[in-house]
């Protein structure tokens, strides 16, 4: 299981724009490198990242090999209501990771 770091403000005012920062541990092997024996190292990257706010998709990213190892993605959204913000990463070789954070909107 990949380790995940998520930064979501615990509390926000209704209608406030909040910044969500995510970081996940992953090698993001580009597929363009070769081992010391000259053998091509197969690609192994995270290809998609999705964020749902109380079930509604608010952010979707397609990642390519040009994303650095341990992909960091930060984006903004409007705090509309209290609830759960869920994150899903999917990638090569059946990679899948999920995490979530709770937010209280006052």
């Amino acid at each position: 299981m990949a380790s995940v770091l998520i930064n979501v403000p615990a509390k926000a005012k209704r209608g406030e724009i909040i910044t969500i920062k995510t970081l996940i541990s992953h090698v993001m092997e580009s597929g363009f490198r070769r081992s010391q024996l000259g053998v091509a190292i197969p690609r192994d990257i995270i290809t998609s990242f999705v964020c749902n706010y109380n079930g509604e998709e608010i952010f979707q990213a397609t990642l390519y090999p040009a994303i650095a190892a341990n992909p960091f993605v930060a984006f903004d959204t409007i705090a509309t209501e209290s609830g759960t913000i869920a994150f899903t990463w999917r990638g090569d070789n059946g990679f899948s990771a999920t995490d979530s954070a709770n937010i209280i909107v006052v």
Partner: protein
Amino acid sequence: MTDKTIKTLASRRDVLASAGSLVGGGLIGGFGLLSTPVAQAQVQVQVQVQAQMQSQMRSQVQSQVQSTQADLNLAIRRIVGEATVKPGKVKLDVPPLSENGNSVSMSVSVDSPMTPADHVKAIHVLTDKNPQPYVIGVKIGPRAGRATISTRMRLSDTQNVIAIAEMSDGSFWSATETVIVTLGACLEDLS
């Protein structure tokens, strides 16, 4: 490269065998100075073939590690279709110089009110010299409040980074910045 040179590359033995007939065809007409024109033509063709093989191998290696301007244009066409991309509205924040191409922080923000009527639909980031042009593609909407994303990317070489924003009205806006990379990604030692 003409069909003829590609054919000669395909089989060097065939080329050498048919070198005599090439002289007959007058391709190497300026080599009448030496005593045996056929032998001279063989040497000439051999040198040509070697040079072509080398240049082809070189271009293959280059195309493996670097995408071309044509690849970038194709990638942009795939994103925008037939629309024109205008410079402006997009702010691309990258360091002017990066010592390590393996992790270059990058942030894109688009000037937009982000209302249901006028918002940013997607943000794409591309490069012109990485092995493939795409970096990230993001779908957002009025729900985002502010059209801003940041991530960390790999850069194989000193090159341009291009951010393209797709608006809800179907227009495309872009920003381009050059990043000088002193140690590119893809080159680190594997241990």
